[in-house]
């Protein structure tokens, strides 16, 4: 492989790469900053695609396979774009014993997807969380970054159908 010592050029003129570059500078262009940088990429672009992984890996001199290995090890990172709306169902213990499984069932019935998937029309992504730490509000669901507590399957169904409408 030809080894280039010059700094790789950002994949496009997109301004968001400047934010990514800033993070990489902050971590001293060191391979140790890989996870920090991936956080920034995901925050800026919503997900980590191949272009981004390649750019970050080359910039920080991290082997490609290691970058990919790290990106897929941590469940917080996603390699696919998220849907228009996101619905995070908390599967912490308190939520589990207070009815989170029924919420997962509701999603499966209503949208035909399981946590970790996005509907085909790209409208809704459903995710599960290990624990939101909102155990006092079990079962908890996060609709587009808003935490809702003591959610019933009916409430969830209503929210999902609200998103489903054009």
């Amino acid at each position, binding site marked *: *492989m030809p080894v280039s010592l010059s700094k790789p050029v950002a994949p496009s003129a997109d301004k968001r790469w400047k934010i990514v570059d800033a993070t990489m500078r902050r971590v001293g262009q060191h391979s140790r900053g890989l996870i920090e940088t991936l956080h920034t990429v995901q925050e800026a672009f919503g997900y980590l695609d191949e272009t981004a992984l390649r750019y970050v890996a080359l910039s920080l001199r991290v*082997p*490609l*396979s*290691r*970058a*990919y*290995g790290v990106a*897929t*090890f941590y469940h917080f990172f996603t390699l696919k774009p998220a849907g228009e709306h996101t619905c995070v169902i908390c599967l912490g213990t308190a939520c589990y014993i207070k009815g989170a499984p029924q919420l997962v069932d509701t999603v499966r019935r209503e949208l035909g997807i399981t946590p970790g998937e996005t509907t085909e029309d790209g409208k809704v992504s459903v995710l599960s969380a290990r624990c939101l730490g909102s155990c006092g509000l079990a079962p908890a669901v996060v609709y587009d970054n808003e935490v809702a507590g003591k959610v019933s399957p009916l409430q969830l169904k209503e929210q999902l159908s609200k998103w489903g409408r054009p």
Partner: protein
Amino acid sequence: MTASANVKTFQINGRDYSARAEETILEVARQNGIFIPRLCELEGLSTVGACRLCLVEVKGSNRLLASCVTRVEEGMEVTTNSERLERYRRGIVELLFTERNHVCSVCVSNGHCELQFLSQKLDITHIHYPYRFPKAEVDASHGRFVIDHNRCILCNRCVRVCDEIEGAHTWDVMGRGIDARVITDLNQPWGTSDTCTSCGKCVHVCPTGALFEKGRSVAEMEKRRNFLPYLQLMRGDQNG
């Protein structure tokens, strides 16, 4: 520090041995012809303590210790074989057989496979945990080599040899838990890898038939590892 302080005397299976302080239990055992099973460890590569087959009992420790990463200590009393260790080792080998699709009868490494060898050595005649039968890919996109994920046991030897000896770091592991698997570059077909030097070291350190040369049929793939001790020796000379 005096030379004598760097030598440790200890016991393995009730017999006295001595070794340099930086040596591991497994190394000493191997030098003295004591068999300890292992699948992830390979002389010449770094140790990761992942397969858990080389666990041994050490008097005074309530935990079992991986002999590949445990250094010898003065007065240590090591047991490499017991009914309990045997049971655990069988369990671990059996778990590996259930994890992917190890169909020995149609494997290129049949007869030359370390997993198969251990199953016989440990007297395993059947797997009493249920098989998983996952769908796993075979990537034959490389000009000379093939990776068959059905037979991969995630020992990580390919990852280490590629990084530590070849310096290419083409291989790594993606995902985690039961979904983990080895990948080349950005999880792309091996044949499209820019970093692979096609040196074939990964193929030859692979303990099973997961990595093999094209054109080999059932039972034809034998692994050659002479390069590892050689490289280790050369590097040792440089350092020493």
